[in-house]
């Protein structure tokens, strides 16, 4: 038998990969590295000058900058905690209820809960601002109708409530995503396993805790990391609802709005692309660390079951 000739370059692979690689490089990878590069420069007398790590020294060493940075990071963390504590458990619970075969109108609920996710954040921001408005909003009236008017506060205008309120609005908008992912994971659990469990006397709630939950843990892990990345990149909802100064008194300022204000400038504050890039780089590092912790610390310990 003739020896197989040495395979040539398989051009079709290059051709098929090219569009994705080129587009991704042009719109993601190049800007990312260019941002990192920009953060090592500064503008002095109209000239771009290499300053090494000076921007980072300012960001972390100068209290004017570092106070804002830690405030934003703290707010970001709180934003993330709310999502993890509220959005994901609710998402899992909704998925569990939806996957129950006895539930009627499941498709209707599924769509209704998922629809906010496809709305623009600008619409969500403005709609909730109006709902909660002390002047035109329906929130005071609704609370009044059930005799709980005393609970009403101008939430978005109070430092102690504003961030939590916005986090809950964001939860309302995005709860459909964990619900859908978990729902899909639940549907993929074969009936045989559940039936085998039933034979052993595991039914109802305990079937959920003992059989379904361990099987969907990998999905919950993925959702957590998506939430983490999404939250630490967040900007739009805060900007739409509270503006670039993230009031009241910076209580809703997160890394995204801090970066925006610095990079593009705001009102009389002129934009500083170099400090802005330094903040963007810090955000990148934070997200990178978070994702690595997850990948190496958690993902590897999760067991995947093959059916």
């Amino acid at each position, binding site marked *: 038998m003739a020896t197989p000739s040495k395979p040539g370059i398989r051009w079709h692979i290059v051709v098929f990969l090219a569009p994705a690689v080129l587009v991704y490089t042009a719109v993601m990878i190049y800007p990312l590295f260019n941002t990192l590069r920009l953060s090592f420069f500064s503008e002095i007398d109209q000239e771009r000058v290499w300053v090494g790590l000076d921007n980072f020294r300012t960001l972390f060493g100068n209290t004017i900058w570092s106070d804002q940075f830690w405030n934003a990071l703290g707010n970001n963390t709180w934003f993330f905690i709310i999502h993890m504590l509220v959005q994901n458990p609710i998402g899992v619970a909704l998925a569990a209820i939806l996957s129950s075969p006895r539930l009627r109108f499941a498709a209707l609920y599924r769509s209704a809960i998922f629809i906010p996710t496809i709305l623009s954040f600008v619409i969500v921001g403005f709609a909730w601002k109006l709902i909660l408005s002390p*002047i035109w909003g329906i929130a005071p009236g609704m609370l009044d109708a059930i005799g709980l008017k005393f609970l009403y506060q*101008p939430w978005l*205008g109070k430092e102690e409530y504003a961030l939590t309120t916005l986090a809950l609005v964001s939860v309302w908008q995005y709860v459909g995503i964990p619900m859908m992912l978990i729902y899909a994971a639940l549907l993929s659990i074969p009936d045989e396993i559940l039936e085998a469990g039933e034979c052993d006397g595991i039914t109802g709630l305990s079937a959920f805790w003992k059989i379904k939950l361990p099987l969907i843990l990998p999905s919950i892990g993925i959702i957590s990391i998506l939430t983490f990345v999404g939250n630490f990149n967040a900007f739009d909802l805060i900007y739409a609802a509270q*503006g670039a100064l993230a*009031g009241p008194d*910076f209580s809703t300022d997160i890394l995204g709005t801090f970066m925006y204000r610095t990079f593009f400038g705001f009102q009389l504050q002129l*934009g500083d692309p170099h400090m802005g890039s330094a903040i963007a780089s810090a955000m990148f590092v934070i997200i990178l660390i978070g994702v690595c912790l997850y990948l190496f610390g958690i993902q590897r310990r999760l067991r995947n079951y093959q059916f």
Partner: protein
Amino acid sequence: MTRTTFKGALLATTLLSATAATAQDAELIIESWRNDDLAIWQDKIIPAFEAEHPGIKVKFTPSAPAEYNAVLNSKLDAGSAGDIITCRPFDASLALYDAGHLADLSDIEGMSNFSDVAKSGWSTDDGAATYCVPMASVIHGFIYNKEAFEEVGVEVPTTEEEFFAVLDAFKEDGNYIPMAMGTNDQWEAATMGYNNIGPNYWKGEEGRNALIAGEQKLTDEPWIAPFRQLAKWGDYLGDGFEAQTYPDSQNIFTLGRAAIYPSGSWEISGFNTQADFEMGAFPPPVQASGDTCYISDHTDIGIGMNAATDNPEAAKTFLNWVASSEFSNIFANALPGFFPLSNAAVELEDPLAQEFIGWRDSCESSIRSTYQILSRGTPNLENETWNASVAVIKGDESPEDAGARLQEGLASWYAPQQ
């Protein structure tokens, strides 16, 4: 409706430019953030200029206000910006001049029609070069609902004491929110609050220049006193003012729910179409009867020349015309509330606008204290003032603490204050 006009206008400019390209005329393109004024430029201002200067074609090409600075900067860097540049006041334009994008206009003849205060927004720090022709200013003050004042039976206040008496009267009456302002968007508290009432305390230009020179500090009485007054405002704002936005306040006032609206002349044309009651205006009340009153007559819009223009002569002709009283008259009446800055006498038809501009004769003019030079560093004094004014109104920070915090921030980078 406005959208279709806008689209039509866009279409018209495209068609116009197609025909203009065939002619030999010098063509001037104007960059601006005033897209609200597109129709006024196209229907009134540009035809008036072109009728007088055949051979020069002018095109007005505005972009969205929030994006203007960024768009303009990148166009200038790329060399694709228009010939005429509408100038933001102070540092944004000064940076363009320093970068060589704006031409020095000190010696065009129309410049003699403007006072130094008018030119301050577009001059170098030492006043040696002026690079934009001052076009319009806005005057701060209080707009009030005349019918509400008659109903409750109060007079227009002239002193601080009377002002709070009026607010108390409205609070007691209960039918009107005494004053429509919110703190959600933050800037109103500083612009319509602090910088509106402040000039009476720091004596306008005198205090403002002393602060720039480092002779006064933000912890001095004239700079703390406006905060003391703001601290008392909180009681007279509507329920939930903490979450009330700027459009909320505008609507509350034009719906007739509030008696007084701390504001500025830029609201006039919008309010004229929305409010169906008669409105009046009064300047910020003085401390004691007979005191000189000071108003914030803030330079807001200027117009300059792209240093890289192909038609410098045509551009200078146009700018000279903008500096003339003819332009002032057209502009002031088309946009009541944006007042021309030239010394030439201007006839205004709008009664509310007349009231505002009348204060120029009885009071001393100044500009917003934080705009020139003092908002150049980090922390940015203007943004800090927003924050401090809000905190004081809400009662989260005492006037003295607010002043001390602003002074500390300013002194951290501004040498004359160190």
